């Protein structure tokens, strides 16, 4: 049985900064809530084609599709990995901030 389609957005890493970015309506965006959502396979295919352009133009690297659920139309990833990636940071304070946290 073919896997049922899940709503998706397209993720990648920014070439220069390496940080996670998502394909938005007319640019790559850092906030996943601004990402363009594909609601069916045809839309996903169209987004994938646009995302590939970003790779070819050397704006981003490593494009792939991320399964999302929608709350009030806003996408949020389904898996823990992609949630962490979409939050664009570690789940815990790190570096100098962590030191203060530990000392507290």
């Amino acid at each position, binding site marked *: 049985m073919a896997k049922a389609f899940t709503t998706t957005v397209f993720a990648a890493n920014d070439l220069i900064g390496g*940080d996670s970015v998502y394909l938005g309506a007319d640019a790559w965006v850092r906030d996943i809530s601004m990402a363009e959502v594909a609601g069916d396979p045809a839309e996903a295919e169209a987004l994938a084609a646009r995302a590939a352009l970003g790779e070819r133009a050397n704006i981003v690297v490593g494009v792939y599709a991320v399964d999302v659920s929608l709350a009030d139309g806003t996408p949020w990833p389904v898996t823990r990995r992609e949630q962490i990636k979409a939050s664009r940071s570690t789940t815990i304070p*790190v570096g100098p901030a962590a030191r203060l946290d530990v000392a507290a």
Partner: protein
Amino acid sequence: MYRYDEFDARFVKARVAEFRDQVERRLTGSLTEDEFKPLRLMNGLYLQLHAYMLRVAIPYGTISSRQMRMLAEIAERWDRGYGHFTTRQNIQFNWPKLRDVPDILDALASVEMHAIQTSGNCIRNTTSDPLAGVAPDEIEDPRVTCEVIRQWSSLHPEFTFLGRKFKIAVSAAEEDRAAVATHDIGLYIVRNDAGEVGYRVLVGGGQGRTPMLARELRAFLPKADLLPYLEAALRIYNLHGRRDNKFKARIKILVHELGIEEYRRQVEAEFARIDRDAIAAPAEEVSRIAAYFAPPDLPVRPAEDAAFERALKTDPAFAAWVAQNTHDHRAQGYRAVTVSLKPVGGVPGDATAEQMRVLADLAERHSASELRVTHEQNIVLPHVALAGLYKVFRGLAGAGLDAPNRGLVTDIIACPGLDYCALATARSIPVAQAISRRFADPRRQAEIGPLSIKISGCINACGHHHVGHIGILGIDKAGVESYQITLGGHAGADASLGERTGPGFAYEEVPGVIERLVERYLELRSSRRETFLQTYRRVGMEPFREALYEPAL
């Protein structure tokens, strides 16, 4: 300490210039990612979950104050003010920008450091005993051998594109502090019956998906034969090793499939055939290297120090730290200090730029300007006089580096896991932090005694969970983190691989699970002197399994 010669220095500079050009071409689009990726990996640059990551080589974990200060500067100037010391005795920067990396590499080169061969299918940083050159139980300084191997393996044309990465460790002491049996090739420096010094050679150890402990390849190898023998061992692996399947490409699989006897036969045949003299390191070169590792000129000291004795009596925190975090030194009146990078609730192995500077300064003043990175993600100040120990302790305490927990339940090894790593299936760091907080009470830690907890965020096992007394492996179960527990692993001379307890546990459950295991151990141990590992080896898995899975009555 070892210093690069002219050739090394010129080579590293040329390599940075070459990479600068490659980055430029990548940014302007004349190199595609497919073309660029192998080039950046050869220079230690990965692309992780949130950012690029630069892994910097610290050969056999030895680093000078000057180099440590440069790491601090890099952390501040081009990263987010901290770095992460790894289980391969290296350091990783987690947030560099691609366009800054050539500048970072230039800064590293200015203190004889680089990121070459920290990635890719080559011979990686040869690791060693963090107490090398210090430990009273050692035959000779193992770093001389490490450096001979580093020079031989750097850019070795035949071994630059192996089937998989290749890791070597060297130990020369009675106590194995280098986890030798978990390496592709492990070398113990030993003395034979005739009193000659040579190598006991192990092969085929490794962690990852199919953990195996290394087997003995040669009981005694004369010292002069080291490189020809390694060359023969690598060549047989390179000829037969599988390149079609990443998971079967490590030498451990080859040794397992051929059988150690057959692999040995082929290596010995190759060894007999090759021109040993052409490959062996010239004796003058070995003595030149050895001269760099001559013990530093430490002033002669009395065996006891009155001020030190007084501080031990008046400051119980200091006494606890001395008991747990310092080691015997070969020289009278000195100790080696382990600086724990595992404060309660902290990120294992992380140090801020400020902490790196404190370490550099303390090393300069009190440890012949030398530091070591341990594979347990701590730092060693190898040569501290008893008379300076209290000052070092106070200096460390001021920077939050005084945790008296070396080898205890909160001295946890954890890989970066899903907070950073693109390959991760689960988080490691917050799990370590939660366990560390749970066991924060120092009296309780002392009561529990030696216990190593090691956590990996995926099957690649960078957190060495297979050889943790308690190992924790985070996996992905339909998008949710789940943690498998293993017991009875050990990385020392009597190494063993952990055995799985049973079904995994949810993220939130892990600290409670560890607590139940520890409580069961405390009930079971025959005396306070019996460690967790000894108890486990005596009673086996069953009582621990019960503690985890029997429904409470």
